[in-house]
Each structure stands twice: as C-alpha cells, then as structure tokens.
C-alpha cells in the first residue's frame, strides 16, 4: 500500500481513494521524509480500513506517530457525518481519554536534582501504580456516579485540585451529556476503587526540566518562563472502568453492524450509526469514562503537589504548581468544522491523537528518557486535520521485541548515566518502554511543526520517571 502514497509536499502525503476496493475517501499522512520512510506498510493499509466506513469525511488522517494497531493504526483521526456517519468504540481506543496533564513549578533543575531520588521514591509511595495495585480511594456508588457525570467538578468539590485546574483542562474537565446509567455495573465495579491510580505500561509520571523555549510569548502565557524550570507530566487514562466501557460497546456495536447491515473491513472496527440508540448510548458512556479519566488525573495531580510539599517544605501554591494544561488523546468529540466551505458538526474520532485548536496547548509526552514538548494549536490544523495533532513518539518496536532486546536493569543504568532517576514496579516495564522501542520524537515533532498543524513552544527533558 505504501507504494500508492503520493507526496503532496515535504510534510503531507496523499493515499487516494482508489488505492483499494471500497475506500470512500482519500487518506492523508502527515510526516517528514524521515518519518514517512519508517512507516509500516500495515499501518498505512489500516488507514484505508477507516476510509471504508459509512459517512466518513475526507480525509482520514494518519499522524507522524502512527503505527500498526488493531484494525486501525494508533495515531489516526477520522471524522463522520452526524446523520450518515458512524460512531465506533474501536476508533476511539480502549483507554478512553488516555491523556496528559502538565503541571508547572517555579523550581529549577538545580534545586530539584539533589532531592530527585527522594522525590521519585516519595511519588512511588504516594501514587498507586502497577497492574492490580490497590487504589487509596474507595468510592461509594453515589460518589462514582457523580464522578462519571460531573468529572473534575467532583474532584474540586472534594478537595482534589482547584477551579483553575478545571479551566486549564480540555472541555473544562467534564464532557456534557455523560450518562452514568450507560456504564455497566462491571465497569463501575472495576472503577470504584481505581480513582487516583497510574496504571502500567506506557503510563507514567515524569519530572522534567525545560531545555528549550522556542515560542517565548506562548510559553510565558502558560507560566513556562525559562530554561531549567521544572515541569511535571502525567500520562494516564480511564483505567479499568474506561477499558470495560470500550469493551462493552465494542460487543454491542458488533451486534449493531449486523442489525444495520454495515460492511466493515475489520471486526475491530465495529460501529453503529451515530444517530442510532446504540450510537448515542455509547457516546454517553464514553463521555462518562472521559470524565472519570479527567478526575483520575486531577486526584493524582493533587497527590503530586502534596508529595512536593513533603519533600521541599513549601506549599504547592508557593511552588506555583498550577496546571499548564490537560488534554485527551483517545476520545470522540462532536465538533464543528468547515467542510466543503460550510460549517458542519461531525463526530471526530481521535485514537492516539491530540486536539489542536488555535492557540490552545498541545502536550506531547515523549517516551521514557527522551524529550517532551508543549506546542501551540493552529488554524492550519482546523483546515488539514480536523483540529488534530500527534500524541507521542509512536512505537517502532513491539513490546516482546523490546523485552527480548533490552534488559530493564541496563535501561535503568543508562537512564541514570543521562541523569534520569527512574522507578518501576518491575524491570521488564523499563525494558518494554526503552527509548529505542519508539520512533524519534524530534522527527515526529518536526513533522507536525513543518505541516503547521501544531507549532513548537517549548521542549522538556526528563529528570525523573515513575512507571507502573
């Protein structure tokens, strides 16, 4: 399939709709030459799968961090007509509202480095992480219902975070129209004791230093003012509750595909007409899971603040530990976009992709041991990618491949040589998340910057990493 892709310019590529049978629209890939050269043929073929779905709006987008996934690539954006289109659990991803929070401080790397081991150890004690880890919060059924319906508003009401955190979060930390009744009892059972847990795999908490400020005005507006300033990035999702919602509705959409006679190229792309009961039930449940994830990251944000207070002996407000911004990168939104010269509301599915709206921050968490970025969203993104950008570096090597090739203990040593303190529940976690298992984040960021869909504002490097 890769041989059918045509270059548009240095950062955009076209896969025309005739590239395979049943493809309804073109696909477009955002990538510079280096990234395009490394793209897997399977990932490009999977992009065409999405282009076959009913009501899909041109183009289906592949972002520079895209890689081969289950039915469609991770790092893909697709939009669907509100009347003729579908909505799909598979096109959102199982970890609903997996996303990133960025918190600033007024501390410098020089102040934090001497206490880094103490800080990472304290965070490891205070933030539950790992598979099967017991959470510290046990929600009653009513409390969980409120989290699902009200998102971060529940958090602030109960002493986790402040109103400003809500204002600095995508959708103000609560998607309107969430319906807890559409979330299964099994999902609720999984979620009631997991609020405030980090999870495992590629989820992490990272303490970073600003290495470069590229857009001083925009960075200043976010309170990121100088090199060596310490920031924190938290990458986590909706945990077992969100995974269960996505699984439950994958099953229900498999039924819907038969009921509404929808042809799908891969069973994982099960879907329902967006305006059907099945479609709207899923959307309402997905919003509830999104709200859970926003609240999950808010609770951990507050515990991070308290941990810094314990280590540095100052209040978090004295350390200016305010939210820079918080984003989603697996989510479905009903958004207005200009299509064919007219404004229309469409269902934008972002799976491993971040919203990139004009002058709104885009947070890209790099892989362990590599750089992260804050970028600025643009009008060009609204024109080219339904207001979307990449979400990370994207994997280049399978997890088994990484575990076979890298040994966790050596990765820890290598990170330490670079001045990065790390803690993980198991050395294998470090191995499977080794930096070389991922694409070069600099090239991914150069691609989105070059295409104009989000512009570099500042760059950060890790000082300490906590993984489940």
């Amino acid at each position: 399939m890769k041989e059918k892709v045509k270059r548009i310019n240095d950062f955009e590529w076209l896969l025309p709709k005739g590239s395979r049978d049943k493809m309804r629209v073109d696909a477009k890939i955002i990538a510079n030459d280096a990234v395009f050269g490394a793209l897997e043929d399977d990932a490009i073929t999977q992009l065409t799968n999405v282009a076959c779905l009913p009501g899909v709006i041109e183009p289906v987008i592949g972002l520079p961090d895209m890689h081969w996934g289950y039915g469609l690539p991770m790092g893909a954006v697709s939009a669907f007509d509100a009347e003729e289109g579908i909505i799909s659990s598979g096109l959102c991803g199982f970890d609903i509202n997996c996303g990133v929070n960025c918190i600033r401080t007024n501390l410098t790397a020089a102040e934090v480095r001497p206490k880094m081991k103490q800080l990472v150890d304290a965070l490891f004690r205070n933030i539950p992480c790992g598979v099967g880890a017991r959470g510290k919060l046990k929600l009653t059924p009513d409390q969980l219902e409120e989290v699902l319906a009200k998102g971060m508003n529940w958090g602030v009401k109960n002493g986790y975070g402040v109103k400003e955190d809500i204002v600095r979060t995508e959708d103000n930390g609560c998607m309107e129209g969430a319906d807890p009744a559409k979330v299964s009892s099994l999902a609720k059972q999984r979620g009631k004791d997991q609020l405030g847990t980090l999870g495992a795999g590629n989820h992490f908490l990272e303490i970073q230093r600003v290495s470069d400020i590229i857009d001083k005005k925009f960075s200043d507006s976010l309170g990121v003012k100088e090199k060596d300033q310490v920031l924190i990035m938290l990458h986590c999702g909706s945990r077992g509750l969100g995974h269960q919602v996505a699984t439950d509705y994958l099953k229900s959409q498999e039924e819907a595909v038969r009921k509404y006679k929808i042809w799908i190229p891969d069973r994982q792309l099960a879907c329902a007409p967006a305006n059907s009961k099945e479609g709207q039930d899923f959307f309402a449940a997905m919003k509830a899971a999104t709200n859970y994830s926003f609240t999950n990251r808010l609770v951990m944000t507050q515990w991070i603040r308290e941990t810094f207070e314990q280590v540095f002996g100052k209040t978090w407000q004295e350390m200016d530990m305010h939210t820079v911004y918080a984003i989603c990168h697996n989510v479905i939104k009903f958004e207005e976009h200009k299509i064919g010269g007219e404004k229309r509301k469409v269902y934008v599915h972002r799976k491993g992709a971040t919203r990139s709206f004009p002058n709104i921050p885009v947070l890209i968490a790099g892989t362990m041991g590599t750089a992260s970025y804050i970028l600025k969203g643009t009008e060009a993104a609204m024109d080219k990618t339904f207001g979307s950008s990449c979400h990370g570096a994207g994997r280049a090597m399978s997890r088994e491949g990484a575990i076979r090739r890298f040994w966790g203990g050596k990765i820890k040593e290598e990170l330490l040589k670079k001045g990065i303190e790390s803690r993980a529940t198991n050395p294998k976690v470090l191995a499977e998340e080794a930096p070389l298992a991922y694409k070069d984040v600099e090239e991914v960021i150069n691609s989105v910057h070059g295409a104009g869909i989000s512009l570099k504002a500042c760059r950060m490097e890790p000082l300490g990493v906590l993984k489940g």
Partner: protein
Amino acid sequence: MKYKFVKGPTSDVKFEAYGSDANELFENAALALSSVMCAVRSVKPKDSIDVFVEGKDLQDLLFNWLGEVIALVDIQCMFFSAFKIRIQGNKPAASAASYKLKATCFGEEAKSKNSLTVVKSVTYHDFRLEGDDKSGWKATIVLDI
C-alpha cells in the same frame, strides 16, 4: 505447547493458545493472558475464585471469558496462575447464551514485584477460534496493552 506469542501489531500483543479440548484451550488462553499481566511463575495458586461466564457461541464465550479474567485482576487485586474450566452447552445459538462455563481461578494477592503490563482488552482484530476435539483447538488473540 500451551501457548506461544507471535508477531502482531506494534503496540499490542498477539498469541496463539492450544488445547486438546475446549476446556484446556480456555485454560491455556487465560494463562497466556495472565502471563502478560504478571510474572505468572512467581504467583502462588493459594487462593481461588469461582466465576461463571456465558456466550452465544464458543467464540463469544472465549472473548467473554478472557474479558472476565482481565476484570477480575482489577476487582480482586489478584494475579492468577492456574485455571480450571468446565464448559457446558454445544447447541446452535438458539438463545442469547447457548454456552456457559464455570471457572475456578487460582492465584494470590497482586504484589507489585509480580506486576507486568495492564491489558486493556481482548480485541476482535484477528480473533479466531479453530479446531475440534479430534484434531485439537487453537485460538488466536490480540490484546490491547
């Protein structure tokens, strides 16, 4: 061989599980799944939980069974290293739940030193169940991790 991991999507895990009958296949598929989530050889099978799962056919039953194991880890905060399965039902799907299974899951409290990777779900991508009691069973599973 109970199971083996094969090449699959870059950020996910794919395995094949085997069994001489469907019960054994289901046990081995759960063991493969468990080995992704925890260091299964270090997990002692000292506690047990019984679960009951339904499905409209054998493939649906397998999907639901593996989903149940994933959920159990979260709900019970346990890891599992052994399973005993009894499947009932072999009629064509005349009702929503033509197949049922009773499973006893053996394991212990989840310890962080045994923690490996969160499995978010079984996917339908390349999901296959093939074979019979005469020639043996094989399942192909892709997990989102």
